[in-house]
């Protein structure tokens, strides 16, 4: 396919990214503001030989993509707040059974039914801790549609590389705004294929025996290796075990395979940070007014910059610590009551210098909202 440019909606950029990455199975359920992803895929997937199904609920959508992933397909589901809550048990299963899968959560106002058409970023902690038990997960986000496309491809790549569910955490503004997106020629962005076992038929295949490089090759259901997959603590055969050593090693493996790679998994953008005395940290659509403010204040001589996080989990703690070093103030911009702000405070030696500029009333945060907090920090009054 040749490079094409399209003027599309954020949810459509997700679809384009997913198809670029090789998506061939999608299961979903209608929910605002993510529904367009399912709508567009219901047309595109069957036309390209892929599978689309609207399941009976959010839970079964997550379950179906796990089943399909085990047959060797690249899979995705898409949802929003309440639907994301319903998917948590099955997301935990994908973590435990190490099944590559991509879950899009287009955030809206919560809790509960909340503000279905309002923007929010209140699911950041739910992504991290929504499934019960100790575990780790990858979450990516983006503030513009070219990056939404790129992060969608990245989500599939990381899901395959680390055999984990990856959450693409968008928000209502990014999902529904329209921008130009350049869809590169195939091959221009790397697409990671599933790592399949080279163990021949008739030789024992251990589905949960980690290779020296930390990776776990898979075998498709229907192939020559028959093995067991379970959500219980399991041994290298995938068979349930209550052996404390096996439980200890498995939980460590599930957490370490991502948390130990937090630095290399960090995707981010920097804007005018080199000499910045004040550093804004933001992500998703909030990074747009933050960037606007940086440009606006730079014009007035203020040394201010922006760190835009694209990987939220595992939290890029070292990156944030490095980036905050030497700044007079750090201002986190987000649309919740300080979920990433807390993480930033945990990452730096002087948390009292980390401030929060936020909104959580369903209204998109504006540069003026951030400016008010900036004035307060600078002692200029509100």
């Amino acid at each position, binding site marked *: *396919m040749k490079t094409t440019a399209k003027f599309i909606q954020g949810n459509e950029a997700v679809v384009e990214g997913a*198809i670029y990455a*090789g998506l*061939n*199975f999608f*299961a979903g359920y209608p929910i605002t503001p993510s529904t367009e992803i399912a709508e567009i895929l219901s047309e595109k997937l*069957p*036309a*390209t*030989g*892929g*599978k689309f*199904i609207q*399941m*009976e*609920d959010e*839970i*079964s*959508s997550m*379950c*179906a*993509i*796990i*089943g*399909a*992933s*085990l*047959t*060797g*397909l690249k*899979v995705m589901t898409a949802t929003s707040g309440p639907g994301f809550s319903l998917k948590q*048990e*099955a997301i935990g*299963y994908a973590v435990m059974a190490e099944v590559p899968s991509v879950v899009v959560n287009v955030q809206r106002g919560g809790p509960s039914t909340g503000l279905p058409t309002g923007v929010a970023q209140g699911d950041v902690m739910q992504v991290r801790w929504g499934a019960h038990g100790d575990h780790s997960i990858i979450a990516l986000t983006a503030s513009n549609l070219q990056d939404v496309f790129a992060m969608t491809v990245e989500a599939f790549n990381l899901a395959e590389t680390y055999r984990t569910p990856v959450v693409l955490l968008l928000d209502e503004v990014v999902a529904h705004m329209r921008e130009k997106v350049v869809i590169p020629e195939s091959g221009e962005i790397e697409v990671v294929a599933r790592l399949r076992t080279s163990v021949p038929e008739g030789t024992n295949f251990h589905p949960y025996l980690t290779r020296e490089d930390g990776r776990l090759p898979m075998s*498709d*259901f*229907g*192939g*020559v290796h*028959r*093995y*067991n*997959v*379970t*959500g*219980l603590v399991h041994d290298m*055969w995938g*068979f*349930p075990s209550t052996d404390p050593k096996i439980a200890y090693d498995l939980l460590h493996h599930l957490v370490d395979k991502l948390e130990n790679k937090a630095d290399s998994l960090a995707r981010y953008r920097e804007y005018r940070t080199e000499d910045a005395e004040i550093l804004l940290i933001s992500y998703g659509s909030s990074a747009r007014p933050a960037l606007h403010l940086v440009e606006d204040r730079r014009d007035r001589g203020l040394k201010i910059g922006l760190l835009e996080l694209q990987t939220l989990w595992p939290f890029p703690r070292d990156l944030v610590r490095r980036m905050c070093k030497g700044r007079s103030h750090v201002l986190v911009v987000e649309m919740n009551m300080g979920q990433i702000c807390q993480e930033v405070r945990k990452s730096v030696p002087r948390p009292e210098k980390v401030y929060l500029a936020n909104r959580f009333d369903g209204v998109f945060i504006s540069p003026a909202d951030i400016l008010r907090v900036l004035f307060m920090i600078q002692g200029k009054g509100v």
Partner: protein
Amino acid sequence: MAVKDYIRQRFLPHMWCAGCGHGIVMGNMIRAIEQLGLPKNEIVVVSGIGCSSRMPGYLDFHTMHTIHGRALAFAMGVKMGRPGLRVIVPMGDGDALSIGGNHLIHAARRNVDMTAIIMNNSIYGMTGGQVSPMTPAGKRSSTARHGSFSKPFDAVALARGAGATFVARTTTYHAKEMIDIISQGISHKGFSVIEIMSQCPTYYGRKNKIGGAVEMMQSYRDGTVKVGSKKAKEDPSLVERGIFVKEDSPEYVAGYLAFMETLQAGKKEEAQKSEPTGDHPDLVKQLRG
């Protein structure tokens, strides 16, 4: 092959109680598969949570032990992912008819080609004997200590009403009948629901003073009759066994593939420009002519 050749012997002994009916079901399921001569690599067994759901682990097929109530949803992904596979879904009565009821009726509505085996022991065994949607009114459990006061489901009527195209009921006492029914269910092109009454002497039998496994199986012998028999008409307290529904009806995944084919044919020219990207590249190429 013998039954043992279908079992992952390194994982034995199994975790079921002495006298449990689930082993009989597993054995007969293997016998049915052997009779049909199905290759092991073509069979996927997907289960949820509960005593019966531990079955796949012991079986030498592609096996998946998932989360409570959702086995059919995972199985749906497997079946759509690789339509050529035979998908068998063993479930308990709580798994299939309480927490998983929604998935059961929708799998039946779609008439997706898989075999749901509901091992009905009228109780939640794994958690210690709580009331289930199949506990008969008046029977005791650890959460219905004075007896259940609600009516149980009729799984056969439910499956039929939801659109399953093969619906049957049997018991662990009727071993040969069970093999035949499972065999027919697996062969049936569409959604098959097989209710198998399976004894739980540890909880259901003990709490209701029915006795051990032998007495419980005798109660299946004495309390059930062939579907449509004269006895069934005379005594409505008897539970009917046998095949209730067996009909041809469009199957979901085959329908999807046909729909995909039509789309591809319609977009032939456009499609010809690019390499097929789906998981059926051969089918797509073939359709392009």
